[in-house]
Structures are given as C-alpha cells and as structure tokens.
C-alpha cells in the first residue's frame, strides 16, 4: 500500500466531541511541534454548541513556514463516533487513520487506500482509571502519547509542557505523564514507528510566539491606554474583552490601593456597549468595544453619531459567516462594506485589517491613537480565523519611548490663553480636524453641546443648509487627511516584471503568499498588494493604475473589497477579478492557485469549491 511520506510537512486532523476536554490535549500536540522548532498552524473547526457535537482541530506542520490552511488530511485522529464515517473519507490516499479500536471499525467504512491505526483507547483508559471524567480526559492524553511515538516526537518536550501546564496543580502531573506513556508504549509495541510522516527538530521558531489574534488585540488595548471596555458577549469576539480583563487584572491594578486602572462593563446589548464607549471617549478616556457582524449591525446608530459628532470610537469586529446569524463559528471577511459605510446618511469609517497576531497588537494600540487624532470611529476588521486560532507570529514589541498622542485637545491653560471665540467645529488647521475640549476643563470657556443634529462651527444647532454643507464637506477634508494617517499597504513585487496583480487583506495573507510562491515556480508572476487600511491612499491608487489585470482575493460571496475599491478609487470594474472563497473555512493556497489559473476571465465573483467533498 502507498504511504504518504514526509518530514515536517503534513496535516493532522483531530475529530473530537466538544466538551470532552480534547482542546487542551490537542493544543499540547501543536505546542510540542512548535517547541521542536517547527512552524505550526492549528485551526479549530468547532460547532455553535457547548457539549456533544463534532469538533475538529486541524494542525498544519510546515517547515517552509507556510501557515495558511492547506486543506486535505494526512493523518486523521478519529475519536468521535458521530463523525467517523465522514472523517475517514477526508483522509488523503496513502494517509493514516487513527481510531479507537475498542469496538471494531464498521466494515462499511473501511478503505483500502489508507493506513489504519487502531488503538483501544477506551479499553486502556477504563483499565487505568476509575473515575468517569478522568477516563474521558486521559483518553485524549493517551492518543497524544501514541502520536509522539508514531511521529517521532521528542517525549521530553511533551513532558516539559505537562509540567508547565500543571504548575501549581502538581498532583496532576504524574497521571498526565502516565497517560502519555500508555499511548506511547502501545504505539511502539504495535506499530512500525515512526510512520511515513514524521517530525524532525528544526531551528525555525527562533523568537516567534503562538498566539490568538483576539488576545493580541486585547494586549494592544492595554498598551494603547484603553481604560474603559464595554461589550456584549458574541462568538467569535468574546475572548477579546475576556483577555483584556485577564491582562488588566495582572497589569493595571494600582499596587498601593489595589484599585483598578480600568473599568469593564458587560452591557445589556451591543447598542449599549458602543454607547458606553462613545460616552467614555467623549469624556476623554480611551475606550473600546468588541463584537461580530450581528453586533456591528446593531451599533450602526452610534457609529453614525460618533462619525457626525466626531467622537473617537474604537470598535473591534471579529468577523464570522453572515448574513444574519449565519454560521456563528465559521470565519469570513464579509463585514467590509457594512463597516466601511455603517449607519444612515453619508458616512464612512476608518478600517484596519490585521493579518497576524503581531499586527493585531500593533493595530490594537494604534487604533486609539488614530481615533483620538482623527476624532472618528476606527474599526479593526479581525476575523474568527485570526481571532480564535493560535497563529505562529513574530514576537510583540513595544517602544518604551511611546507617549500617547491624544490628538487636538485643548487644556485649561490653552483655553485660558485663547483670545478668539472657541469653536468646536472650526477648522483652524485646514486639515478637517478641529479642537476638542473635555467636559469640566475650564470654568467659563470651551463648553459646547455635542449632538447628532446639524450644527455650525461653534456647535450651535442650526438648520441652515450652508452650515450643514460646510460641515459635511469639512468631514471630507478630514477623510483626505486620514489617508496620510492610516497604515500603508504592504507590497510584494513579482520576481519578473508583470502587469498582473493580486490584492488581498487580513487572514488571506498566509495562503496568498504561499500561492504566489507556487505560482511563481509555475511561471505565473503577480505583483501583490496587501491592503491594511481604509481609506485607500495614493499607494493603492498607483497599484491599481499600474496593473491591467488584478485579482482580488477575499473571503465573502460578493467581492466586498473589490466593490469598495471600484467605488472609492473610481476604476473600471473589468480590471478587478474577484476570487471569493466564502464557505466559512479559511481560504487555502490551493484554492487561490486553482482560481488564479482557472478564473482569470471572471469579472463576477467566483464561487468557492470545497477542497474535500465528503
């Protein structure tokens, strides 16, 4: 029989039942490969459910450093009887199928083109443990032990991780290591170890970290000086504020008094969550909220107010599959247009598109600077894939010389020394950005009324058409100013001169870069641009101008970034070829390659085709 052979380049998929403690065991597996110096990218594919439904954990091992989802499964660890019939079909020919052989495998499921690895996991754990919960938990650890033997992993690395994980709960260390050994010994005794696929230590990790994007955003908010966080729980954004709270408890408690240099409000809904942020920002604190698409829909009202009244507002949108409730636990980049033009009337908002945890951290902190400087909402467009999965990332860095720039805010002495009349909406510097005052600053000067209704330059209510137009046009001046403030795109020129280009953003980066390498080897050369923000600046215009045919890869059905580019940059739609992968799974390099090669003539979005059909 054919056997897939590979060192450090394969995909392992764990099929489990959610709520059985498999996540920490599977995480142990990914982390130990990372500890062996090899880039790894684990992805959770989980149900919108707490207990009892199928969940998958897909680990790509790749010592070339490609971190996007690859697709296909070389080794399936099939622990869930509910999904086993589907799971066995997902294994690539020549691949491996590890299953619980306590009961024989249904003959109808057998395939003769894959390698079966039966381990009586239930039997072993039943023999070794008496407690029902322990039996379930240690079954997971046993298969990790078996994988260590099958893939030739360093057992000491696993042991060390167990020691670290249970620091403070030392009683649990020995039984966990025992469980690892049970699996390890069984595999050594019963199979030819290692398999055709195996791990070999490398030195590629250097100082990299494994981190979830939501956690990095939360840390960015800590470092960026956020003091007020308001939120309403929603998958996949929940961990942003939970992590903010975790780090705030550690890093933001006043050592003298034990009091908090932060306030977190779990609001009654998303409307209130962003209302708290607008109120706190209006009053001079740095504040943020985190939500997902359904929450952004609800927040439209306040986003319009913050845009028009010019109140700094930071919103983190961890996108999931829409529309409506959609697929709450699957990824997508389908809130681009919603966020860009949120709320009624003429509005547009600053967007940031992070691609890695490091960028989540940087943009997380930078969003507060941008919001303060531009006095407008800044929306960070994260997604489930980046937000909730651990990503291999460069380490986070902070310059200790950084001082917070609160933008144009007048102090008490500024107001005291001011000779002319203060006007909140007076464009003194001709950049569309006017001077704010915080409530309670000066006894007689600087007070004004903030409102969502039209007002003149002195913040006095007016229904004068001239004053209204004047204000709306100044907001456009500010929008132009913003182009110089937001992060520039990242370019990746082709090896050979070409007039073909490709545009991508956010989590598509990893798969797109892998696809570009492979396409280049096949003689297809594309200049690449990764969009990092909206509004689009002159660099984006130039890239569009300098290429005749440009693919736009995005994870939504309608080619939303393409629409935004056409609309904002006023270019001919024919030039932009939409490649839209929107099945809820992170886009793969294979998919991008297939569609660049095959879909080059499409001007309409190209529908996604699943990698592996069940």
């Amino acid at each position, binding site marked *: 029989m054919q056997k897939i052979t590979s060192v450090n380049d394969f995909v392992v998929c764990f099929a489990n039942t959610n709520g059985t403690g498999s996540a920490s065991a599977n995480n142990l597996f990914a982390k130990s490969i990372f500890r062996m110096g090899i880039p790894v990218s684990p992805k959770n594919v989980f149900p919108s459910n707490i207990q009892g439904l199928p969940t998958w954990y897909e680990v790509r091992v790749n010592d070339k450093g490609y971190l996007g989802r690859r697709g296909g499964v070389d080794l399936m660890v099939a622990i869930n009887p509910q999904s086993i019939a589907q799971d066995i079909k997902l294994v690539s020919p020549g691949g491996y199928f590890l299953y619980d052989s306590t009961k024989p495998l249904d003959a109808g499921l057998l395939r003769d083109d894959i390698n079966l690895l039966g381990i009586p996991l239930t039997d072993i754990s039943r023999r070794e443990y008496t407690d029902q919960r322990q039996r379930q938990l240690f079954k997971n650890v046993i298969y990790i032990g078996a994988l260590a033997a099958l893939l030739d992993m360093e057992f000491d690395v696993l042991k060390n991780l167990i020691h670290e994980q249970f620091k403070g709960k030392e009683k649990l260390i020995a039984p966990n290591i025992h469980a690892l050994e049970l699996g390890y010994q069984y595999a050594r005794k019963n199979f030819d170890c290692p398999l055709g696929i195996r791990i070999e230590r490398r030195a590629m990790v250097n100082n990299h970290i494994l981190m979830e994007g939501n956690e990095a955003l939360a840390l960015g908010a800590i470092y960026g000086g956020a003091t007020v966080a*308001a939120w309403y729980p929603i998958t996949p954004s929940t961990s942003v504020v939970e992590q903010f709270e975790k780090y705030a408890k550690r890093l933001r408690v006043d050592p003298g008094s034990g009091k908090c240099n932060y*306030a977190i409000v779990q609001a009654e809904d998303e409307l209130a969550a962003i209302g708290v942020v607008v109120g706190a920002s209006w009053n001079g*604190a740095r504040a943020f909220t985190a939500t997902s698409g359904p929450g952004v829909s609800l927040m439209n009202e306040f986003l319009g107010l913050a845009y028009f009244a010019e109140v700094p507002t930071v919103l983190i949108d961890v996108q999931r599959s829409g529309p409506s409730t959609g697929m709450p636990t699957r990824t997508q980049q389908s809130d681009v247009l919603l966020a860009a033009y949120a709320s009624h009337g003429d509005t547009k908002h600053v967007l940031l598109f992070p691609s890695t945890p490091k960028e989540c951290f940087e943009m997380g902190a930078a969003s507060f600077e941008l919001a303060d400087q531009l006095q407008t909402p800044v929306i960070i467009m994260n997604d489930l894939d980046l937000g909730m999965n651990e990503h291999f990332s460069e380490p986070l860095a902070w310059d200790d010389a950084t001082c917070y720039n609160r933008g144009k805010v007048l102090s008490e002495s500024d107001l005291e020394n001011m000779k002319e009349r203060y006007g909140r909406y007076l464009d003194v510097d001709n950049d569309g950005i006017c001077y704010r005052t915080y409530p309670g600053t000066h006894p007689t000067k600087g007070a004004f009324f903030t409102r969502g209704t039209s007002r003149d330059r002195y913040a006095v209510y007016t229904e004068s058409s001239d004053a209204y137009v004047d204000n709306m046009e100044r907001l456009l001046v500010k929008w132009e100013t913003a182009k110089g403030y937001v992060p520039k795109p990242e370019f990746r020129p082709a090896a050979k001169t070409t007039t073909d280009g490709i545009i991508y953003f956010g989590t598509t980066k990893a798969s797109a870069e892998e696809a570009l390498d492979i396409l280049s080897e096949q003689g297809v050369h594309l200049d690449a641009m990764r969009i990092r923000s909206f509004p689009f600046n002159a660099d984006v215009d130039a890239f569009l101008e300098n290429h005749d045919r440009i693919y736009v890869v995005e994870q939504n059905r309608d080619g939303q970034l393409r629409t935004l580019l056409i609309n904002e940059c006023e270019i001919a739609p024919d030039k932009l070829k939409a490649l839209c992968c929107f099945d809820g799974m992170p886009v793969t390099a294979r998919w991008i390659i297939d569609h660049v090669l095959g879909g080059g003539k499409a001007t309409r979005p190209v529908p996604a085709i699943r990698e592996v059909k069940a």
Partner: protein
Amino acid sequence: MTYMRPEFRHPDLPVNDLGYTRKDYEGAISTLCAGCGHDSISAAVIQACFELAIEPHKVAKISGIGCSSKTPTYFLGKSHGFNSVHGRMPSVATGANLANRDLTYIGVSGDGDTASIGMGQFAHAVRRNLNMLYLVENNGCYGLTKGQDSATSDIGSIGKKGTPNLFEPIDLCTLALELGATFVARSFSGDKDQLVPLIKAAISHCGFALIDVMSPCVTFNNNPNSTKGYEFVRDHIAATGKTDFIPVRKEIMAEYNPGFTQEVTLHDGSVIHLYKNDSDLDLHDRLSAIQAIHRCKEKNEILTGLLYLDPDCEDLHQILGTVEKPLRDQNEEVLCPGSKALEAINESLR
C-alpha cells in the same frame, strides 16, 4: 416662547457659597412651547445647582432624543452637554461617568425616551447604580412628533387627538424600585417647592437617583380628559410629605414631629428630612414605597415626593473597584506596562 432675555441683572443678586449667582447656571433660551412643563424643570435644575454651589462647569448633561432631551441646552450653559441618540442616554452616561468620576452627571430623558425605546438601557443603568441624576420629564405623549400616546400614558387618558389610550401605563417609579434603584422620587413640574429640594437630594446621593417629573405638554396633552395635563395633575396630586434638604454644615432649624418625620443622612454628610403625610411610608423600605404608590393610584391620586432612598449603597465605581483619580487623567506611565512586561508575555507564548 421667548426670543430675548434681558441682560440686566441686579447688582446685589444673591450669591452662593462659591460666589456664583443664579445667572451663572443658566443656559440658552428655551425653544420649547410657552408654558411647557419642561422649562419649569430646567429652572428647578438651575436653582438646585445654584443652591448646592456646584461649580457651573463641573456638570455633564446628557440626554437622548425628544422635547425633554433638548432641555440640557437651556440650563448650565458652562457645562458640556451631549444630546445623544434616542433612548441611549443611559449608556452614554455610563461611559462618561466611568471616564471621570469627579463630575456631576445629570441625565435628562422623556417618557418615550425612557419607557419605550430606552427601556432596556434605563433598566440596566438602574441595576448598575450609576451615580447620576436621571430626570424623566414625563408628559405621557410624544411631543416632537405631535402628540402620539407614550407608554406612560394612563389607560383611557385622552390627548389632543381625542382618542383614548388603549394600553396599560408603565410606572417608572415602581419599576425602578423593583430593579433596585437606590433613590426614587416623583414630582410635578408645577411644584417647585418640592422639586428643587428633591433635585438637590438626588444630586447629593451617591448612586442612581430617579425623579419622574409629571411635566404637562401644553400643546398636545393638556386637555381636561388627559391624566397628564395641568388640571388633572393639580387636582389629583398627593404628596409623601414636605422634603427638606439640609446641606453639610448647615444647622437644622426646624422642629420635627416624631413618627411623621424621617431623617436620612447622605454620604457627603448632608441630611434629608421628610415631613411625612403617610406614617406607613418608610423611606428605607421598597415595599412600603410600592404599596404607597398603589394606594394612591387606587384613589386616582398621583403620589409625589421622595419615595425611597438607600444612602449606604455602592455606586458603579465602588462596585468595579476603580481608582479614585479619574480614568481619563491617567497617562502612559500608569496605563502602559512597557516592553519588559511584554517580553515576559512573549516568553509565556513560546
């Protein structure tokens, strides 16, 4: 409606403890209808802030949308105001208060803004015990859209349109009492003697203070068959008693009749005296307040005055354990953990 206000002020106008005159607490000229109850409430707010000697710029005025929500323009012109979105004043006030605990927060809302579109936010601001005065200028109708019934309109009450309201009213005071409000009062825009001390007490209270003020809409809901008009309210008003607010360090002069008097000391040391008309009402007992409201309702009376007060409550800042210094005044030295801490975090992620 007045278009001009005389600039002349008598040189010997009384001044408060900080040396400010009442004029220092005034705002822009009202654009509401002549005789609107809301203007009387604005005047009462001005009087209360003057008498309390609050610095005129140390107040944040926050409102939603509607006639009532326009009024913060008409008082305390040296303070910042925020006319936010419909029904969302409580969340904006929550954020503002968290940013700077040192200001006085006055939220102004209406019956539509609170009892309909803003019901959720109102309920949760009560639960959080946000330190603020929450004024409802309650006229039983939507004035700015020309007189539709609101959710506080009594069943059978007839506004200018001539059709009776078909639905049960929401009583914001009993609701707030159920939700755990720590200061609950009801008043009438036409009863300045009652309203001013209530506002002073509410501002001095360290927690959420609701005053539901009957405030007739002269244009759309002031006809004889309306239960929110001047005539009906005046004829059917009953009071819990006369409220006196005695600031810190002021000597208590009056003589009180024991049994019918209740004295409450607030956190800042000021004292509230209630000369009760109803000896069954206990200001510290929610149930007695709810029962008193219902007793009056059965007699077709509107019970006004202070209804409930818990002076020993913890406000949102105390519940969350935030630092004394306003969060908005903290800088990077306090807020940013620095690169060394970040390197330790990096290490924990390897």
